[in-house]
């Protein structure tokens, strides 16, 4: 079939030219012509074939679309050029209207193929849009999930954080009639690790502890609240025992040494446990209680758990309230001083009086020093309170001295914090000056334990050189180190009540001997010995026989208002 070839080439060139630019055809003009030559031959065959077959025309239409001639213009120009030139270029005649039928079948084949192609492309782009949207939504969900996770988890340990824990705790309280427990875990000595080995080591330790807690407590929620604080939420406990088991497991897991940066570190933790019904309590109550209980565990020596105890908590709250109301009470003048006689055993003369502070509390009545002095020492108010007592007592002593030359000296207790206070010497000097009380009429009492704990000797020397008397109080409750006393500028020894107790009935020769030895030793050191808590005439007699210098106690007079002493001086 090599005839018509020139005609085929000429026609294909004209065809290519006609359709160029109707749509993007991914080939060069030369390549397109090549393709169209093939189609031209097929058309020629269609015109010549006997009988006429419509399938050839369809095929040519479809091939055009597959060659990416895919626009309405592409078809229009094709029909035009076929109609105008095909028969002429090929040197053929139109037999029996074949040309018209051929144009019809080419158009049909083209339209079908283009429609199929369009539908396919539409389907694929819609699918792509759907996939893209799904991916975008998935990515959004993931980033939201990540965001949520970050908002509710601790980035160091990966454990839930305070926010998530608080949510869960609150949720637990919405279910009525349940019990729950909170174990508040805090590492012992974590700051040391951080300070000595650095934050990196600290972080490693926290990560490991978090891991161990997570493993040891089963399904219960473990959260890191911050720093070295962790918390375990035990829901639906049936009794306290359930919480203790969890705490025990946590402590056991934590107590294993941890390898950090090649070093083995001993680790331990303390846990505060609160286990209770949700009814009548609240999340903040529980957390407060857990916090308090954790402190008890720490105070109790660490490496342990403590269980919340309502009574202890109430006592502590009461103490706290008492302590915090004390400064205002001092301002309002709720404190006053009672005086207890110190009497010479030989002859019964009133040597001195001990000033004892009292608090006339508006609701609790008169409080004795043992209920509040400890609190004042803790809070530091003791410095102001002590100074007030000192002024009050010195003023009173001065008044007695004005009445009688036989007036007693006042003995005032000095707390260790007062001795440590840099203003003490100035304070004492000032009080003596203002009241005009001779220094020898003021005695300051320091407890034996304070003296042994190493108070500033310089302060004591300064006081002594002013002429103030110094006494050791509560002697015999500590190591009773007389040798040490030699170094102190002390004039008097007040022997604790426990020693005097044994002399009550007279059937305890050992106590009596000890007391006798004590007195003898004190005397060799030139100390005056006063026995405290002397309650019976028998005790007084035995003490006198031993050679004890003076005594204080109910037998010689209860603490009382200054008027009692006034009366004695007036006699």
């Amino acid at each position, binding site marked *: 079939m090599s005839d018509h070839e020139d005609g085929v080439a000429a026609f294909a060139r004209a065809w290519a030219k006609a359709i160029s630019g109707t749509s*993007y055809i991914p080939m060069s003009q030369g390549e397109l012509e090549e393709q169209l030559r093939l189609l031209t031959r097929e058309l020629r065959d269609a015109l010549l074939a006997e009988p006429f077959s419509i399938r050839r025309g369809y095929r040519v239409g479809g091939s055009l679309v597959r060659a990416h001639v895919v626009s309405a213009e592409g078809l229009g120009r094709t029909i035009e050029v076929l109609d105008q030139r095909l028969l002429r270029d090929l040197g053929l005649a139109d037999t029996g209207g074949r040309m018209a039928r051929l144009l019809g079948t080419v158009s049909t084949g083209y339209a079908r193929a283009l429609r199929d192609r369009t539908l396919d492309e539409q389907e694929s782009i819609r699918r792509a849009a759907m996939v893209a949207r799904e991916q975008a939504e998935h990515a959004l969900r993931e980033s939201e999930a990540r965001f949520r996770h970050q908002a509710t988890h601790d980035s160091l340990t990966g454990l839930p954080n305070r926010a998530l824990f608080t949510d869960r705790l609150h949720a637990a309280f919405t279910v009525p009639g349940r019990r729950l427990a909170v174990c508040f875990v805090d590492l012992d000595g974590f700051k040391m690790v951080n300070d000595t080995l650095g934050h990196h080591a600290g972080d490693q330790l926290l990560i490991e502890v978090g891991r161990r807690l997570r493993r040891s407590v089963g399904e219960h929620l473990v959260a890191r609240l911050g720093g070295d604080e962790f918390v375990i939420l035990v829901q639906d406990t049936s009794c306290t025992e359930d919480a203790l088991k969890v705490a025990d497991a946590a402590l056991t897991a934590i107590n294993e040494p941890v390898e950090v940066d090649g070093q083995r570190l001993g680790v331990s933790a303390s846990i505060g446990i609160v286990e209770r019904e949700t009814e009548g309590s609240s999340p903040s109550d529980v957390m407060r209680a857990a916090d308090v209980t954790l402190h008890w565990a720490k105070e109790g020596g660490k490496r342990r758990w403590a269980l919340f105890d309502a009574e202890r908590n109430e006592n502590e709250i009461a103490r706290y309230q008492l302590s915090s109301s004390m400064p205002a009470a001092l301002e309002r003048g709720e404190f006053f001083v009672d005086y207890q006689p110190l009497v010479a055993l030989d002859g019964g003369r009133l040597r001195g009086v001990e000033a004892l502070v009292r608090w006339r509390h508006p609701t609790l009545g008169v409080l004795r020093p043992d209920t509040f002095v400890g609190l004042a020492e803790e809070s530091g108010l003791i410095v102001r309170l002590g100074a007030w007592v000192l002024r009050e007592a010195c003023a009173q002593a001065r008044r007695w001295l004005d009445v009688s030359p036989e007036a007693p000296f006042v003995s005032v207790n000095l707390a260790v914090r007062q001795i440590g206070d840099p203003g003490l010497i100035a304070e004492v000097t000032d009080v003596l000056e203002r009241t005009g009380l001779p220094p020898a009429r003021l005695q300051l009492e320091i407890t034996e334990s304070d003296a042994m704990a190493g108070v500033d000797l310089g302060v004591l020397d300064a006081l002594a050189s002013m002429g103030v008397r110094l006494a050791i109080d509560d002697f015999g409750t500590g190591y009773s180190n007389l040798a040490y006393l030699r170094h102190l500028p002390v004039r008097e020894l007040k022997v604790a009540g426990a020693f005097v107790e044994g002399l009550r009935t007279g059937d305890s020769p050992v106590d009596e001997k000890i007391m006798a030895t004590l007195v003898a030793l004190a005397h060799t050191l030139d100390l005056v010995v006063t026995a405290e808590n002397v309650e019976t005439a028998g005790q007084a007699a035995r003490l006198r026989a031993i050679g004890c210098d003076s005594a204080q106690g109910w037998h010689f007079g209860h603490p009382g208002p200054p008027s009692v002493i006034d009366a004695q001086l007036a006699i």
Partner: protein
Amino acid sequence: MQRPEWAPESIDIERPSVARMYDYYLGGSHNFAVDRAAAQAMITAVPEAPLMAQANRAFMRRAVRFLAARGVRQFLDIGSGIPTVGNVHEIAQHEMPDARVAYVDIDPVAVAHAREILAGNAQTVIIQADLRTPEEIVKHPEVRELLDFSQPIAVLIVAVTHFIPDEDDPAGLIARIRDALAPGSYLVLSQASGEGRTEEEAAETFAVYRRADNLVRARPREMLLPYFDGFTLLDPGLVWVPLWRPDPTDNTEDADRVVFIGGVGSLGE
């Protein structure tokens, strides 16, 4: 909850997309009604728009063939669009059966579509990324897995830079890509140029894109020269795209009507 910063853009097919409008100009049906409406508005304003797209695509085809014939085996097509007729990998692999092509586009639909078409073709990859963060492209693990950056790569940035405003410094972005390339690499680039048009005509042409998600910044020839900094422009230089190494039978009359200027540069050995 506030949407986190890193949340992806949602897929919005209510807005015309450059990639799908472009497909429409080329005669494809990978487009939606919004895209066709925008494309038709464009054609009303600029009747030769389809011609422009086709001429540009033909330029890319000739350039890829040319480079493949020169032995380039690796291609990085940035702003590849909807991969339909005459993909870079089809052209390149026709010349060089072992040619590898990494496609990059910012349009998630185009990327999803490409992913489907390219599935099973181990010598291609497609990633979604932005030309404005070039390091993300040249350091992308999938790109790195496919292309060896110690060997020459032909980078195609065809009909893309007019969507990058001046303040994003297109020349700087291209330089950052260039710095990742080995000697013997190439840059194939074309973009819309307002050259030879009145202000008014240019404004009319490019206003249409304002409704699509991109603005168009047509640039004169001298603004495109810095894009080839470090490259040596091959003959015939930066020209109206139909004039870049046309096939002997191609019609190159009225070449300036296609608006696109393009060229190929080689990175010195």
